[in-house]
């Protein structure tokens, strides 16, 4: 059952980076945390009809220290920003952010003194999911896009290149 069925008694060659990226992609744990109506759609995404567990994401972690994906689901008010940023900072590296819905992406219809005009003013957003609120399919599509991004994440090559460059500069 599973991987050994396909591999048999063979040797598989790959790079560490690809293996780690693949592992990260398939066990992305979101933080349990919703701000407005988008949170309801996020909950539905986790429930059986849409079943986020298919992507290794069924564990919505209540503690940011065990989560590596933050789905900013809903309107972020200026009063809420300190809490959101704090949760993001408490998450361990590596971590990703999805801005779910029009409000988290751009402030949405709330062009007001009380609402943040896009959470990307405070957090590095990887994927924006449009919609008001986006349907669960939309969120899942955004998550799959993030998976693609993570699969191509050159975190080791980048480190290696930087080290080589530093050595060359020193020499």
């Amino acid at each position, binding site marked *: 059952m599973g991987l050994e069925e396909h591999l048999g008694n063979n040797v598989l060659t790959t790079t560490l980076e690809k293996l780690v990226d693949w592992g990260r992609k398939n066990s992305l744990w979101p933080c349990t945390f919703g701000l407005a109506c988008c949170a309801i759609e996020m909950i539905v995404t986790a429930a059986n009809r849409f079943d986020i567990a298919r992507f290794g994401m069924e564990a919505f972690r209540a503690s940011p220290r065990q989560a590596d994906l933050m789905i900013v689901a809903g309107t972020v008010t*200026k*009063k809420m920003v300190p809490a959101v940023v704090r949760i993001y900072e408490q998450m361990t590296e590596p971590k990703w952010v999805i801005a779910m819905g029009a409000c988290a992406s751009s402030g949405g219809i709330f*062009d*007001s*003194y*009380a609402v943040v*005009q896009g959470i990307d003013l405070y957090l590095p957003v990887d994927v924006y999911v449009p919609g008001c609120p986006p349907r669960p399919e939309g969120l899942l599509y955004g998550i799959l896009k993030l998976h693609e991004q993570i699969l191509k994440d050159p975190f080791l090559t980048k480190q290696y290149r930087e080290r080589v460059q530093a050595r060359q500069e020193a020499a």
Partner: protein
Amino acid sequence: MSAAVEKVQAQFPDEIVEIYEFRGDTTIIIKPEKIVEICTLLRDDRETSFRYLSSVAAVDYLPASPRFAVVYHLYSHRYKNRVALKAFLEDDAYPSIHSVVPVWSAANWHERECYDLMGIQFRGHPDLRRILTPAECEAYFPLRKEIPVRGL
């Protein structure tokens, strides 16, 4: 005419500016100076018995002057009726009125909200500070008409 109007007319004839009714709801426009006395009367008199303050709100009538008005919505559980008191504040730059917290303690947070969003000073309020906007919010009152919708 409701009992509230009769009582206020009898006791504070000089304080009444206007009385009008709209679809069964009575509004009494009064001068701001004796707001505490009028409220105490309406609360304590057995024929009015407005023991419940449902809201304190402020209105900005820019560019009119007087610019600010404070509206009190009262409810009587005994007679199951309502009355609105409205007072226009003379000073457009520093609008202020006496606090009604001594009459209804429910006024505490309502008046703080009025101060927070509209900048009405409630004299004698026990703890007049911002209640809704973040603490680090700049010193402006976001619901005033001259403030852009998006804030400053």
